[in-house]
């Protein structure tokens, strides 16, 4: 039985696959991108200087979030956790907040670990400063 033209046979197809996979491996041998942040808005915002200590830290994300599986913390620069939690509102599915204690003047770090509705975990952090009076 006559085979199809020899220019395209199983051996060639296998070579094509091998070359494609090798090229793919080469193209992927670069450093991977770091984790993303879907954070859209924060109050206080990143690098903000506030005259009055905030009572609540509020974060808004690009997509829906799941409060029971999310965590926001307010920390000092040396890692001491001053507040922890994640409160959401049914009418604002993209927002989370945490109540802040009375914050003395100084620098604070807000860390978040949030479950998006698509099942992905979003993590990040930023800092803000309470100015001295």
């Amino acid at each position: 039985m006559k085979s199809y033209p020899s220019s395209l046979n199983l051996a060639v197809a296998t070579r094509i696959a091998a070359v494609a996979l090798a090229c793919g491996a080469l193209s992927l041998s670069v450093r991977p991108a770091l984790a993303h942040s879907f954070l859209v808005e924060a109050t206080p915002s990143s690098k903000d200087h506030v005259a009055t200590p905030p009572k609540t830290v509020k974060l808004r994300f690009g997509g829906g979030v799941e409060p029971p599986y999310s965590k926001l913390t307010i920390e000092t620069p040396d890692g001491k956790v001053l507040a922890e939690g994640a409160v959401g509102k049914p009418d604002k599915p993209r927002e989370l907040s945490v109540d802040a204690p009375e914050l003395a003047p100084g620098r604070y770090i807000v860390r978040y670990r949030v479950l998006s509705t698509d099942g992905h975990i979003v993590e990040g952090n930023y800092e803000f400063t309470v100015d001295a009076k």
Partner: protein
Amino acid sequence: MEIALLRFFESLPSALAVGLLLLPRLIGEDGARFKPAVAFLAGVRAILGFFLIAGIARTIIPPPKPIDLASLLPLIASTVVGKAWAASQILSLVFAALAAARLFRDSVWLDRATLWIGVAVIAVVSVTGHAADDSLPVWTQLSFLLHTSAALTWFGGLLGLVWWMATARGKPPEVARRLAERWSLVAKIAMALVAVSGLALAWETVGSFPNLLATAYGRWLTFKLALLCAVLLIALALARYVTRQPAKAFDADWYGRVGGAEAVLGLALLFVAGWIAVITPAAHETELYWPLPFRPSWAATWGYKVPMWSPAWWWGVVGLALALAAAAVWWIPKAFNWRRIATPIAAVVGFICVIVSLSVEAYPDTYNDPTVDYTAESVFRGQANFQALCVSCHGPMGAADGPMAKDLKVPPADLTAPHVGNHTIGDIFHWLTHGGQSGFMPAFAEQLGVDDRWDVINFLLVLSYTDRSRFLGPGGIIQWMIAPDFALIDPADQFTTFYRLRGTPTLLSFARCHAQGEEAKALAASLELAKEGAKSAGAHHVTVYQGDCPQGVKDREAVHPKEVEGAYSVINRYPNEFYSGEIAEAHFLIDRSGYVRARFRHFSPDDGGVARLSAHVAAMAKEPLVTINLHSH
């Protein structure tokens, strides 16, 4: 990686099961010999589904908390991803039950129901991933379902076809050919759906052409497309074999082996698809890595006089030569045998050469996303760093007139010149981090953190407006100058940033009320007219007033007035006037999209300013809303 592998192994059996259900129906065959395999595969899919939810739960609930029923049930019941998994798992259990029922009962309706439930099972593969992302438009979310159902139907059918051909001993070659022919039609339809839905998905998840190479997601997708091209080439060869080979001479064995090679590539495609389903979409990446030392840019090379014999010249010449060769091969009779291969190859390589000739230098940071939004606060910080580190060469307003500039062998860049716009903000970030192209500008990675460098870049963006902003007046300009965002005081907690006022034009008024006597009265009257004018025109009004301004003329205020005044003072330039970081009085009209469109220096009853303000606001109300991304400028 665990989730990606689970998705891969979960999709494989369900796709093959659907393929083995579909293929016999194409030629009216009994299909009984595949029933045990279909039941087994459907059962495997159902079992693997439980491993998937455990894997998803582990990424959500970090150790040392255990993954057990007590932790899984609330996750499944209360989260979108949990509910999506439950729905897909119920479907897979129904699929397994129907496939098992087929072992004991012969029924066309049972066969059809099993097939369609199977297609539904493979369609919902993506609902426990990006398809459930509610930040995506609905049509994108639906595209995920169409994409997975079409792609896995194709892949499962291909695997099934190879299986059928391998076990087709005793079957007449005409039957094998008929199956291959009908499958080819199904595959074409499936591939067309994959292409259309894939384009729709890429539009949202990739975001731009540079992201195809600058992000991990994009690189994997590019690799996936390369695999798809290889698959389509093999499919084309198989389709041509079917149409050209006489039915009695159809070689099922050969066809199955070549189809097997196509299936190997399809397997790699499936793995890549499972992997990109769990990593960050390219459009959401903030730290990008451009792997090439150049980037194509029509805008940056427009008008560029290419020196003869330079690399760009040679790339262009070779590209054009290859394009001409591609055309010539098609028309020269002696080359007819080679044209189907030579013409596409020469055309593609020639196109690549021309693209390279229209390229400019690029760096790993070229397409980096800023870590800081385009805000007045950031511009103010950036200006302070610029004053501290850059003015000695670039000058106080970036005009390359710093005190050290004249002593440099290579003059510093004029940051107000139009060519600055030909560079990406990532290019500027690269020079700030590693030093300038000329080798004379030092690196500032040690003095400036990452956020500080983006603050400087935000300031440079505003600085680049100054050349033309000095001519901004009551007459108005086109949409070009983006107004920096800033935080607003809002007791109702609704309009907490300037950007949130979009949708309606805003009059942004600045004033310093330190004058005395008649000057103070004139200023107060102007501010009163500004307030009344904005109100009667239906525009928002934001006031950044300092000093002893009457309380009655104030409206929404900025949280950081000093920073906002500093940032907007950069564009508050006038011809033949020195720059001042303070704004004595100015009123900027920002349109509903966020562009600065007009500026009024002062309002008085007889200058017609208020009437012009009203006319501008009325005209802007009819303009379409343009989305400005403050994060990726």
